[in-house]
């Protein structure tokens, strides 16, 4: 699925990186970064309400290029800086995690497991 399509579906705002041509195969939603660090799947979208530098660092270590912040959380300047340094994409949506995940599952975004 094109990241641009995901942005449309959850009415997301792009606050770091470039979504052009980015393809996402699977999604993983968690506020627990320790759980994110246990998955070894690539080309995934991390959907989280954990809005701090550690969410971005976790994604960096786990080779996750795209992070979608839910529940109206706003990325802070440090998060945007680290994301830009690592060519990562940060998106923000005002939707809840349940709503976000439901919409994306419905249009075919696959689970990691």
């Amino acid at each position, binding site marked *: 699925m094109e990241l641009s399509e995901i942005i449309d579906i959850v009415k997301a705002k792009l606050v770091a990186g470039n979504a052009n041509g980015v393809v996402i195969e699977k999604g993983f939603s968690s506020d627990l970064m*320790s759980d994110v*660090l246990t998955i070894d799947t690539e080309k995934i979208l991390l959907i989280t309400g954990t809005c701090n530098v*550690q969410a971005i660092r976790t994604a960096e270590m786990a080779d996750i290029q795209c992070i979608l912040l839910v529940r109206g959380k706003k990325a802070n300047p440090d998060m945007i800086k680290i994301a830009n340094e690592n060519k990562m994409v940060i998106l923000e949506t005002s939707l809840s995690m349940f709503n976000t995940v439901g919409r994306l599952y419905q249009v075919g975004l696959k689970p990691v497991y």
Partner: protein
Amino acid sequence: MVTLKFNIEGGNFSKAGYASSQVKKTLKQLNIHQSLIKNIVVALYEAEVNIVAHAYKGTIQVDIAPTDVSMLVSDEGPGIENIDLAMQEGFSTASAEVRQMGFGAGMGLPNIKKNVDEMYIDTVVGKGTSLKLKKMLNNV
């Protein structure tokens, strides 16, 4: 052999992950296989977060040799009272603040072990903990 050394501040979550990020960049420059890099930096990052979450201060030394990557993660902190418990998935002594950061789920040490080939824990209650990790580079 390439050696990288870092000082880690306990409690400073805004900097947690900086050392692991630098190590990741170096491993990439050395053309190490992507899946091995991920194993190494996930283990190191969990260990780095452990220092920030539990200790007063610590150091990380990473030695990158042609055949393996060795990591020594040492801290001055409370130590681990019961290593068997700490190795159990789900067991955690993390503070509410640490949990708010998205950690403290009791997955740290088990996840470190999963990602490396060798792990030794040396801990003294009231003094600190050191973690010796090794990842072989020849089995992708």
